[in-house]
């Protein structure tokens, strides 16, 4: 089941200069904390000239799609899913 959501969330992001990697570690949404277990994909796109970063990740049995607006540096939760058919 996929559910579209458009809600502001808090994200803990870690930049590791030795591994040249950036990855979300923890999400805070709707009063609950979700540790990131796996980042599936990171991709970017532009809407006009604004660059957005999208992280597709899982926290245990939940999938999250989160978006960073590089103009405002605000995070938005766009979608959650459980990996089952609608």
């Amino acid at each position: 089941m996929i559910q579209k959501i458009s809600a502001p969330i808090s994200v803990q992001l870690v930049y590791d200069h030795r591994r040249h990697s950036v990855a979300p570690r923890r999400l805070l949404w709707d009063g609950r904390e979700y540790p990131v277990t796996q980042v599936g994909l990171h991709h970017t796109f532009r809407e006009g000239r604004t660059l957005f970063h999208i992280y597709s990740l899982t926290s245990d049995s939940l999938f999250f799609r989160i978006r960073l607006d590089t103009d405002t540096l605000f995070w938005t939760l766009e979608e959650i899913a459980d990996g089952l058919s609608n």
Partner: protein
Amino acid sequence: MDYQIRLDFNSKPSTVMHIDLNSCFASIEQQANPLLRNKPIAVAAYDTPNGCILAPSVQAKKLGVKTGMRVKEGKFLCPELIVLKPDTEKYRNIHRKFKSLLSFYSPEVTPKSIDEFVLDFSGTPAFRRGLFDVSREIKNRIKAEIGDYLTVSIGLGPNRFLAKTASNLHKPDGLDEINKENIDAVYGGLTLTDLTGIDRQNAIRLNSVGIYTVTDFYHADLRTIKAAFQSICGYYWFLRLRGWEIDDVEWGTKSFGHSYSLPKFLTKAEDLAPILAKLVEKVGFRMRKEGFQARGVHLALLFEDHEYFHQGLSLDQPIFSSQDIYRVAYRILRHSPYRLPVRNLAISCFDLSDRTNLQLGLFDDRQKKDNLVKAIDEINDRWGNFVITPAIMAGTEEHVHDRISFGNVRGLI
């Protein structure tokens, strides 16, 4: 069969590599969402029952789900099928990452579609290393740097056609070469329609001159193949099958077009007008961005009962503004003799010319119009498409989504 004209198989080493990302859209979705891995999923134009399946996953293919099926047919074969709508930006991103990685090995990297690349290794240091080693390294780097769930099939051959054919021999995750030594064995295991470019109709043409197998096709003389195709295509096939390069051609831009399958069929021209306006805006924006103007507009309508109407109009003067294209397209739409529910609407601009040569009109100020259109395009480019649109487009937000065409990667990078 009469073998009169002979040409030896090209003895050149296999310098061409064809790379095909297996089940592209579905694999990328499974890469993004680990909870979907090893499950039957499909990316479809719409997730409604009549939506067209664009890409089933490897697991869905094993259960009989195929590209082109309706979602309801896929669900009938596989009730647990997970259907997703396409995320074009995600696929374009992966395409760019692939291109960047492959450019490390050869300066000649040609994207053939969103999920296919051709590399020419002639004269490159990578070729001296051995292309099987290079292929394995590419596969490993794709997993390490782009996505651990992504697999590619790689084909090697002396020309593009044989490299592509080799990439189709074992899917997913294949690695094969077709060369002078194994050509008879490979052709012996294929049917005519396994060859890229030979559809059912072409197979019937070949049957009509006594060619029933790929081996027959390979050993047929030029005169026989020419008799089947009745065109220069016969000669191209004669060369292609023997490993000579005929497909390394850059085709120029001939037209810009966009089509849309309506989720709800509409009959009246007034109801179709907003969607037509949005298609025109997309086509016009892309055409102007590439620096073209057009002297022709073509409109095609596919009706609910699969009746078809299409008409092209050639114009005295080239046009470039979306407003002008829309005016011509709407005129054609009104000329349609049918009053049937429309299921698919397609618009294209043809007879292109360079927009830098603006010919001044006698009655309208083309320079002024050019400045206005440029200003609108700049605003739409800065803030995202469709910030400024014609009023008639109001309410079309849910129509004409971003799509990736099959084969065409123009303007992708």
